[in-house]
């Protein structure tokens, strides 16, 4: 199937999310759509998938114009979409999930599960997916769940697949497997639109690349382009992918975590006997695939989650059974993984967000009153210092872009008197310019003698920041290794294979 998007324009109010975008997908081709968060990739795909109607432009399949009023129509026409967040029902089996909404029926209109099983088996065998139709989805690893999503599309005869940031949740090994699968699908004639912001993957798998920036197609570079060339096109200016830094000047240990065990809300052991320590002037990065206990580890250190056993010592203060406030006051700074949920109050202004954890004491509080003059002064100063792009300090946090929101969080935490910084996914969903800036700020914190704990699922980020790397798998630390360790080895560790 040949798919063409011609001159697609989509506006939201005054914002032009897609500006005259054209894109062709040849049969059996892997076409990478590269762009930063907010560049307009998702909008374009939602137009293609019938979730949004374009203001102008047309969609053609094999030269014939089509019009999708809903995802159902797009599916019927042979377009499948694998969303970043899987649309699967955890307690159903693979076969049940695959046929959901399109159930094969036997006598008396009863569900014919055997037909469903056969269908899954057949597709799985054809492409080497290695999926058991009777496995419950919740028991499958994330990579396999993703293959179930792909089977779902193929079962509806998708000829063109859209994969939206499919590698965000995968280990490096699973990512490699996905690339294999994508090549296999392409060979059998299925076309693939691969949406991503990861340059390495684009280079690995693309037949063709389209780079989108601020709603416009800016280039269609050759698949042989270098990572630096691609980054420059994506961001629109020269990008330095390396973070420069001086050798670590180590001081004393300011964060000591010992035999830490943490349970999640369902009493499952999420962190299992984790021990490490970080010295002043050092960055320890915890690598690992999402969901291996990193989130719970960070929350436990800060005091947001109850510690089951073990201890956390911040700058000599045992904060194991202390409140969040006591942990913060003993010199801990915390950049949470989900800034919208834990880091910011969207309905508050930037100035208010910058005093979120400072409302108890000076300079923000004067007795029981807020010192508004001081608050605004500090806000304006931090906006300058941290290059927060905003019309004013009175702008609501939710109106900022992801990168600027994250800068608000980082500015707030780093402006306090810190001994230890815990930053979880510090640049998730952030534009490249802000990533560079935030990384510089983190390195600066390290150079000024703070102990820094970074938790990141992005291997690139781990390698850019870490002095030492601890890899977490199923709640345990597989090993703590030098920052010069190879990607391959780290990848194996992330899959639980000890060094």
């Amino acid at each position, binding site marked *: 199937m040949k798919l063409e998007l011609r001159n697609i324009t989509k506006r939201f109010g005054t*914002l032009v999310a897609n500006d005259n975008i054209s894109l062709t997908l040849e049969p059996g081709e892997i076409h990478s759509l590269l762009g930063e968060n907010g560049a307009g990739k998702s909008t374009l795909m939602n137009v293609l998938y019938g979730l949004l109607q374009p203001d102008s432009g047309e969609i053609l399949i094999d030269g014939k114009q089509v019009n999708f009023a809903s995802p159902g129509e797009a599916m019927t026409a042979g377009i499948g979409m694998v969303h970043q967040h899987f649309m699967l*029902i955890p307690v159903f089996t693979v076969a049940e999930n695959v046929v959901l909404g399109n159930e094969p029926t036997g006598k008396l209109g009863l569900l014919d599960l055997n037909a469903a099983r056969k269908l899954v088996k057949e597709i799985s065998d054809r492409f080497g997916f290695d999926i058991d139709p009777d496995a419950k989805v919740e028991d499958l690893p994330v990579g396999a769940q993703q293959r179930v999503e792909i089977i779902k599309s193929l079962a509806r005869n998708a000829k063109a697949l859209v994969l939206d940031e499919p590698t965000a949740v995968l280990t490096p090994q699973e990512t490699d497997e996905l690339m294999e699968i994508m090549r296999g699908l392409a060979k059998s004639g299925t076309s693939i639109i691969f949406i991503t912001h990861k340059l390495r993957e684009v280079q690995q798998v693309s037949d063709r690349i389209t780079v989108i920036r601020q709603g416009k197609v800016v280039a269609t570079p050759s698949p042989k382009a270098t990572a630096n060339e691609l980054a420059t096109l994506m961001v629109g200016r020269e990008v330095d992918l390396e973070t420069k830094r001086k050798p670590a000047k180590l001081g004393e240990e300011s964060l000591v975590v010992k035999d830490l065990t943490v349970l999640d809300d369902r009493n499952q052991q999420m962190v299992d006997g984790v021990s490490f320590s970080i010295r002043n002037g050092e960055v320890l990065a915890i690598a690992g695939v999402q969901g291996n206990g990193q989130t719970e580890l960070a929350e436990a250190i800060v005091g947001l989650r109850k510690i089951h056993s073990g201890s956390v010592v911040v700058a000599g203060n045992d904060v194991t059974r202390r409140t969040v*406030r006591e942990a913060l006051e003993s010199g801990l700074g915390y950049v949470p993984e989900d800034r919208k*949920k834990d880091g910011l*109050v969207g309905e508050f202004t930037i100035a208010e967000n910058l005093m979120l954890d400072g409302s108890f004491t000076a300079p923000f509080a004067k007795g*029981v009153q807020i010192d508004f003059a001081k608050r605004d002064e500090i806000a304006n100063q931090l906006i300058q210092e941290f290059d927060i*792009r905003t019309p004013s300090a009175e702008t609501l946090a939710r109106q900022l872009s992801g990168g600027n929101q994250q800068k608000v969080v980082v500015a707030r935490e780093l402006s306090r008197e810190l001994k230890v910084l815990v930053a979880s996914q510090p640049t998730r969903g952030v534009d490249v310019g*802000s990533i560079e800036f935030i990384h510089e700020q983190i390195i600066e914190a390290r150079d000024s003698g703070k102990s820094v704990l970074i938790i990141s699922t992005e291997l690139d980020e781990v390698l850019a920041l870490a002095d030492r790397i601890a890899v977490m798998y199923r709640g345990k630390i597989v090993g703590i290794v030098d920052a010069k360790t190879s990607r391959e080895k780290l990848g194996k560790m992330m899959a639980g294979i000890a060094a």
Partner: protein
Amino acid sequence: MSKKKEVVAIPESKVQSVLQEIMSGDPVRIALSILLGFFIGAIFMVVFNTQVVNAWSNFGADPGLAFSSVWWTIQDGYGALFTGSIFDTSAGNFLDGLRPLTETLRFAAPLIMAGLGVALTFRVGLFNIGATGQIMIGLAGATFVSTRLHMPAVIHMIVAVIAAVVAAAVWGMIVGILKARTGANEVIVTIMLNYVATALFTFCLRQPGLLLESNGGGTPKSDHPDPTAMLGSLFGTGFNLHYGVFLAVIAVAFYWWLMERSTFGFRFRMVGHNPSAARAAGIKVENTFVWALALSAGFAGLAAANQGLSLDGGLTTSIEAGIGFDAITVALLGGSRAGGVVMAGLLFGAFEAGSASMQVSGVSPEVLGVVKALIVLFIAAPPIIRAIYKLPKPKPKALEPTKQTAKVSK
């Protein structure tokens, strides 16, 4: 393993965004809701007026009368509301003409005080339906002090007010503690405690040792409050307005300071908008709930003092007069802001004050009940108002892409 979490994507909560819109108290939408409420109220007046119906059944004979009867009915009805609540045009002199306005203030004061209490919980992200019960308990406290204890004037009154506030606050605190300790839903707890509080107050009114009047019989009724404990009259005979209105002024000033200026208010609002960010910022969210509910009930206690210390007669439970329930409406209508609650309280106070004169003019005062309820209904259903007035949808949430100036961050 938490991989389970990632299997199902939860669509962005529509409920949440609608709730946010309701609580946001957009002034234009509220004004339009009020207007629409009055409009539909007018339809009620017209349709249920026998003269209008007769005029229309003789439409052929006199079409002019049919139309003018509609006009006059509405004018009489809402005109009576005006003369009953703002200015009495038939009064002998200007000052006497203002008597309806003082009545509006008198009715508005307790609504504003209790409304502020409910508003406070809205801003903390809670839904306190318990003002009724909190007022009952406040009344018990105020009545006990005003009838059983004897003190010099003014001091007696102040002690009685404090008793009402403290009693109500403790009652509200129970809700907070239940919520914080057990995760109980405050809506259910407050509703149920309303029944408990009403029964408890009645029980106290029946006990000779507690609140029952000295030579009382079977009816649950208290003594007259001591004159020393009364909120005195402001303008003397002919006017009912009393010092309770000053309690309301103090309450409004305090509420504004608390929510907009103090660090407590900052934390209240933080918890209301995003409890998990508040927790990460070192705030004990559960404790905040306890304090917020206690403070909220304290405001209801002020309303109770206003009621219990102003009447020159023995109290029964009827003195609560539906204030606790109307307070929810007032808070909602006022967008939970100090100024908004004052305006909403005045509007509802005017309804109370004007309903008598509407009845005199031959319009059923229940029309005002309909208007009140409709206003709330429209406010609680933003899409209805948007559809009727063809308003645009609220602005999209984010200004998505960054202004990418070529500037390289240093």
